[in-house]
């Protein structure tokens, strides 16, 4: 992690990004659980939020996360064909294909919004993924508080 040394936050300390992961109950959450039970160490910056399905993840959740100070958001669910509800991840895939471009157009760095399929057996993939995304968001730097997507702190 070469970026760890170079990117500093406003206080001059090493920048520790805040990541929010919206994951589905059946695949990625189980995969993330496997990462833990397998004792795989990974970057500790991610807050995992479990939802029934990627199809349940409303774009408003992402906006709310950015508004509340997330530096990056990960959305992860079952591989195509594996959805517990048979089609939730297909619906999600369509929604995100459009929404991520809209957010990019309005000034949110594409590195800050990431998507993946992680199955219940892919504990190692989840660890690697979080490490990589942490690096990428760290390289993108702290999410500018003056970005219109952010809630400004009380003065």
């Amino acid at each position, binding site marked *: 992690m070469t970026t760890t040394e170079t990117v500093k936050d406003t206080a001059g300390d090493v920048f520790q990004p805040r990541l929010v992961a919206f994951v589905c109950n059946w695949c990625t959450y189980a995969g993330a659980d496997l990462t833990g039970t397998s004792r795989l160490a990974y970057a500790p910056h991610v807050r995992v939020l479990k939802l029934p399905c990627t199809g349940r993840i409303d774009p408003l959740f992402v906006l709310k996360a950015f508004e509340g100070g997330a530096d990056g958001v990960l959305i992860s669910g079952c591989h195509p064909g594996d959805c517990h509800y048979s089609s939730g991840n297909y619906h999600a895939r369509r929604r*995100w294909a459009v929404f991520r471009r*809209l957010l990019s157009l309005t000034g949110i760095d594409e590195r800050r919004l990431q998507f993946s399929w992680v199955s219940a057996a892919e504990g190692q993939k989840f660890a690697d993924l979080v490490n990589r995304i942490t690096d990428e968001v760290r390289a993108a730097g702290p999410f500018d508080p003056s970005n219109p*997507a952010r809630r400004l702190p009380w003065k």
Partner: protein
Amino acid sequence: MEIATKLRADAAALLGDGRVKLVIGYAARGARRVPVFISEAPKVEVLMWDATCRQNLAAYLSKPDLKTLRPVAIVASPPVMRSLVVLASEAQIEDGSVVILGLDESGYHGILDLGKTVELLNAVCKGQGLDREILGRLEQIRGMSPQERAAFWASEFAKCTRCYACRAACPACYCARCIVEKNVPQWISTAAAAHGNFAWNIIRAFHVAGRCTSCGACQAACPQGIPLMLLNVGVTESVETEFGIRAGFDPDAKPAIGSYSLEDKEDFIR
């Protein structure tokens, strides 16, 4: 005034024999063009149409006060027709409850049902692409750094007073309870602050993804001059390139967001 004469005659006939309860059309008030709602045949004389009639009258069809006044006749140029097709595909128009008085710059097309409107649209407008000037500006914005884009939109969204004129003018925004009025939980802040404006404008644009026909009514209605069409055309362009879907040409179309294909691209998913 060839168009107006034929239009008035048809409107009077429809109202006269009770085929419709109401005619929604345009009238001139000085240099301005305003919507009119006519329920008696003798009053059709105010009806007119020219290329400056840009307001999308299809937005009125879903207003609670007018929903009960069907069958209704509506003066419709191609952008309005496309909105009507979207409404039909979303089961907002019952069969035969909306009579279309079709017209465009080439002339008056007479009393049309939905089927004939779709034929006309596919013949006349299917080949038309998105607005080139807007696409050019989009390319410019996409060429900026994320910080520059954020600064551009920060200054635009800062003007927003959350009057929701964009929503009121849009035929696709017909939810009886809009997300922005739901406050348990409050997803979109109503505070006069940047983050609420951002969330509102993004969600408005996303909720009409694959349904927007680029008629421009929202931007024309915005009292603050926010370039909403940049967002709408940006989204519409994504929907076209990702899924090959153009809204407003097929009354049997499935919603672009809300349906899926096993072949959808997923190059952005790890």
